[in-house]
């Protein structure tokens, strides 16, 4: 990538041209724009020239990261990609970033008090996630990961729990014997109590997940509140949606919502009936998300939404998805009322207009599995 010492006004940055900040002169290390969109949540992609074997390159990478953080105040969003991993970082807005590439999306809130993660991705990407989080946080805070929130228990969103929690530190109280730092080992890990139930097992039984991955703090009821990095953070528990242990996380100051797998742009909603999910719960939760979101203007921007999988969104994208799920639910409900069996409903192809967008005949969640889950969910007597 060619670098040129060129100063552009803020609206005139272009690929291959490095800069420090609006109105500043000169070039900052190896941070280079590969695309600034100047539309909500979609601006630049910064590639860091970081090579693990080269200390000087690493320093340049860190400088590049610093420069990118400086630029955060100037742009409405920022993305950076580390060459040593497939984890991509997109600045959403305020203190919140979206990490893409670790199976499920991860939301990261960074501030002077430390780091808060919403979900930890799949286990196979944990080392890359941790390295990325450290790089992201270093210019902003020297404090560790303090909190992790799990939106639900599935391993594509909790696979990194153990390692990432161990890399953090809890703010703790009470009586401490010995070295006080011993009491702060590991970040606090919050989730709805049903996440704990899904990960653990009664004494004498084998737990599905090792205890290091379990929540350290659980909540019951429909909400929990946290205040961290000068930001109010609300956890809302929709009853029986994707699973029975979902949390929707709302960063109020940053105006960003992390939805977990209640909302995805990549496929039909996964209704995990065995884990207490239901199609009507998913729709109720999507409508609840729409109650929280406020678009800035003309149904765009404003509250930004990080889906469990897929691209960054705002209210209009959730509306599109909510409409789709509701229409399909209504169709299947109508077919059930007509007395159709599951096989007859599948044969009627009630999703066929949305299949090119969200459908699949292979993989972990096929269209048939979705139709079957909706059918069974609607057929279950409550």
């Amino acid at each position, binding site marked *: 990538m060619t670098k040129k010492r060129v100063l552009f006004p803020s609206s005139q940055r272009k*690929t291959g041209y490095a800069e420090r900040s609006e109105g500043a002169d000169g070039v900052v290390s190896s941070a280079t724009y590969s695309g600034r969109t100047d539309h909500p949540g979609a601006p630049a992609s910064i590639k860091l020239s970081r090579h693990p074997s080269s200390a000087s390159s690493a320093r340049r990478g860190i400088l590049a990261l610093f420069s990118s953080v400086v630029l955060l105040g100037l742009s409405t969003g920022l993305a950076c990609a580390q060459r040593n991993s497939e984890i*991509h970082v997109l600045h959403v807005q305020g203190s919140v970033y979206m990490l893409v590439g670790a199976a499920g999306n991860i939301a990261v809130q960074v501030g002077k008090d430390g780091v808060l993660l919403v979900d930890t991705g799949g286990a196979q990407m944990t080392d890359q996630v941790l390295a990325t989080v450290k790089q992201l946080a270093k210019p902003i805070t020297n404090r560790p990961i303090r909190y992790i929130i799990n939106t639900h228990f599935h391993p594509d969103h909790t696979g990194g729990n153990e390692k990432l929690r161990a890399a953090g530190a809890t703010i703790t109280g009470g009586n401490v014997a010995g070295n006080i730092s011993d009491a702060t080992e590991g970040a606090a890990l919050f989730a709805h109590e049903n996440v704990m139930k899904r990960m653990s097992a009664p004494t004498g039984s084998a737990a599905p997940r090792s205890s290091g991955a379990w929540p350290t703090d659980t909540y019951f009821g429909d909400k929990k509140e946290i205040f961290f990095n000068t930001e109010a953070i609300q956890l809302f528990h929709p009853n029986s949606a994707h699973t029975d242990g979902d949390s929707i996380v709302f960063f109020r100051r940053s105006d960003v919502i992390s939805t977990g797998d209640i909302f995805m742009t990549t496929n039909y909603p996964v209704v995990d009936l065995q884990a207490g999910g239901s199609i009507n719960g998913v*729709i109720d939760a999507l*409508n609840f998300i729409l109650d929280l979101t406020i678009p800035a203007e003309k149904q765009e921007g404003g509250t930004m939404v990080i889906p469990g999988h897929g691209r*960054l969104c705002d209210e209009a994208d959730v509306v599109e998805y909510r409409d789709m799920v509701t229409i399909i639910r209504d169709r299947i409900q109508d077919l059930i009322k007509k007395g159709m069996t599951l096989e007859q409903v599948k044969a009627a192809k009630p999703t066929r*207009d949305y299949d090119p967008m969200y459908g699949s005949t292979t993989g972990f969640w096929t269209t048939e599995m979705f139709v079957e889950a909706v059918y069974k969910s609607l057929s279950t007597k409550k």
Partner: protein
Amino acid sequence: MRFQLFVVLLVVLLTVPAFAQVDPSGEWAPRFHEDQPERIPGPEIGDYLGLPINDAARLRADSWDASLLTLPEHQCKPHPADYSPRGPANLRITKEVDKDSQEIVAFHTHISWQAPERTIWMDGREHPPDFAAHTWQGFSTGKWEGDMLTVTTTHLKAGWIRRNGVPRSDRATLTEHWIRHGDYLTLVSIINDPVYLTEPFIRTTNWVLDPRQQIAPYPCDAVVEVERPKGTVPHHLPGTNTFLSEFPKKHGVPEVAARGGAETTYPEYQSKIRPSAK
């Protein structure tokens, strides 16, 4: 004298852009001689004539209920970049020039209905990554091809091909050719949608220069127009939309043609359906 003339000619030649460019900036008033019934009164329910749509698009359009637009979350949607030039589209184009290099950095467009603002980057920047947000106007980059400005747009929100429910997905890309002939401006737009179109969909739109044009503001405030149970999404269940048959009957169009599809967009289709036309 000869040397001075040479210098003057040299300066003139050096200040001419490397490629021919015709500035599209200005105030442009729309002309509706093309597709007027679709664009001004609005398309009729079930009119998919001339659209290279697939079965999935057809079912979505059949299921569409105009009542959807009464939901507060649907009321203030602007037309996306590929459709907004088709509506009440008084158009303003301005250019952004770097004060030092005098290079065109971007063109900005503003259209009257719902006031969508769009930027067409001319500075060679790349499009955002796949995981970035999509917007109604998408992300556009332009380049000159002779006098013609060719624009590529990605990152569009899910929208519509025709505003009677025929969908266009958020995976679609838009290619445009802006061509100015004096006081006339022609836009050729080509939509490629791997989800709902089987062929590229091409249409043209025209404007006339109108230096006296003043575009009014277009604020939008969503309100509850119809009280409904929370979460209601108006739509027609498959096979229940009784309005679909009105359009072909009213205009004497064969029902099969009204259903659209790539085949119906070609002239030879007329001879194929002539025996069945009534």
